[in-house]
């Protein structure tokens, strides 16, 4: 096969709490290919949030190597990391993180603004992305005028509008009821079927069951790496 999308080699992350050094990741080696659908599971404190932050280039490893889409990410500065996040990664958060004063379309446009895309193209692509999550009729609604499921779909449209190589979702159904959760997970299934690489962080087994591969972390190490289906 070609180069993997994600390649982690012996990645460690230590946090300093005063004089004490708290290890969050104790050497993670991992390879994820394009169009995989991976769930990362583990109890709280297992290091799954830290792993997700590093995968999302929101944080950098203390040691080890991280190659994303063929590019070495470990030594990059803030501005370079920001550009990688903008180009390669689409984030979906548990609490949606939409700008409350902006409309759905403006929220979706935001990553394109930072990518320097001209206004007219920004609008067109934002509208397409919203249509792809069945929100074509909610372009001018503000987040407080939308339901929880709709908000999360706006956030997914925002994550996809840059056509990232990786969709990274952190507990995307944590704030949703079971019916809406099912809707969102069905959407992820569809995106994956269309070729999108998806990484999902969750502690719910039935959410993780949608993935084709389940990584379980414990004490900063990968405890198990199962492929299902």
């Amino acid at each position, binding site marked *: 096969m070609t180069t993997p999308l994600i390649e982690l080699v012996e990645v460690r992350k230590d946090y300093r709490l005063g004089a004490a050094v708290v290890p969050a990741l104790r050497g993670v080696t991992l390879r994820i290919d394009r169009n995989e659908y991976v769930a990362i599971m583990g109890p709280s404190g297992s290091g799954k949030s830290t792993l997700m932050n590093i995968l999302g280039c*929101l944080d950098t490893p203390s040691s080890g190597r991280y190659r994303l889409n063929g590019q070495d990410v470990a030594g990059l500065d803030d501005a370079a990391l*920001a550009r990688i*996040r903008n180009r390669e990664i689409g984030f979906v*958060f548990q609490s949606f993180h939409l700008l409350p004063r902006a409309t759905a379309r403006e929220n979706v446009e*935001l990553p394109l603004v*930072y990518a320097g895309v001209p206004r007219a193209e920004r609008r067109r692509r934002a509208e397409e992305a919203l249509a792809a999550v069945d929100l074509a009729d909610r372009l001018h609604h503000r987040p407080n005028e939308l339901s929880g499921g709709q908000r999360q779909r706006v956030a997914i449209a925002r994550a996809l509008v*840059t056509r990232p190589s990786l969709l990274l979702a952190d507990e995307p159904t944590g704030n949703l009821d079971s019916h809406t959760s099912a809707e969102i997970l069905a959407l992820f299934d569809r995106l994956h079927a269309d070729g999108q690489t998806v990484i999902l962080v969750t502690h719910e087994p039935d959410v993780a069951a949608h993935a084709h591969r389940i990584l379980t972390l414990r004490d900063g190490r990968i405890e198990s790496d199962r492929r299902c289906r």
Partner: protein
Amino acid sequence: MPLGATLAEAWRALRAQPLRTFFLLLATAVGVTFLVAVVSLVEGMDRYVRDVFGREIYGINTVIVRRRPSIDVDNDEVRRRAYARRPRLREDDAAYVQAKLETPAVVATMFDDAAEVRGPRGRRAGNVWASGVSASYFRVQQMELAQGRFFSEAEAARGEALAVLGRDVAEALFPDGGALGARVHLDGVPYRVVGVLAPRGSLFGLSLDRAIYVPARSPFGRLRRPQGTVDAILVQAAGPEWLSAVRWEVESWMRLRHRLRPNEPNDFELETADEALAFWGRIANVLRLALPALVAISLLVGGVVILNLMLVTVVERTQEIGLRKALGATPRAIVQQFLAEAMLVGLLGGLVGVGLGLGLAALVRAVSPLPAAVAPWSLALGVALSSAVGLASGVLPARRAAALAPVEALRYE
């Protein structure tokens, strides 16, 4: 990040929190308001003083001889006594200078005193400036008549009891008109009105029209100045090109007249409009520099207010900043966003201040005798300073925002 999007974002942030925006704008608007208003007043005063000093008081191309300076700033006792020892100026000094002058010029004399003027039917005008003048005085001061005539050299020489009234006095004594040829009493002596002056306006709130002019040698003059002394000798050059020659000649003849030896200082003052204006110019320059300096202090305070509000904003928007970073905002884009907001605040505050300043200047002009002339440079300066203050105040908060770690910021509640 495109500039348009940055500004649109800043504008949206300002609209989202109207109360906060109000205080942000107020921070610089107050300083700019006073800058514009104060500069307008100084400029207005400047124009007014030049106008009034140049035309009304000194007269054009005129050298004025006085016993003591008309503007004396360090008013100390020693100097005052020295002035008091100087010889008084007399009408025959004026005649002497007139006779000796070789440069083409007109010589006039004047003295004035407060007096009461009575008209028919018991009407009276108190606190009038009554001036005993030579006939040439009207010409030197470029006075204009509304009706009648001035008195002639011959009439003045004979000391005839003729009077030219200022507009206010004429209206007070003859509300229905008919002043010409009528009789008024000055110091109890009857005078015949031969002319009424055109209105001349006021100086520092004192009306120049509350005046009466009579020949220096008429009964009023013989009563008030029995020795034939005068307050001022005015010598008007025939044109601006003669002014310095006239000044030099007048000084020389007066020194000769007072028998001063070459090493002795003048025992009289020579004044021209330009010299008085130079004095005012110094005051105006101090005001032009000092007042904006005070305004600058208030802008500095405004800057601190903006700085603080923006720092609070950074904390309030921590999560939003984290999100923007996650979506690909570079530190530079975050800095730009906050700087744009701070500068927009300064710019808008400056514009509001300019508006309020113009209003304040107009208000002062309307309710007080102080004039106000808007100086365009003060408007530009106000907006520029205010924008600069906004921008400068935004630097620290912007940097703090840009330095936030995205992980921490996203997790911040």
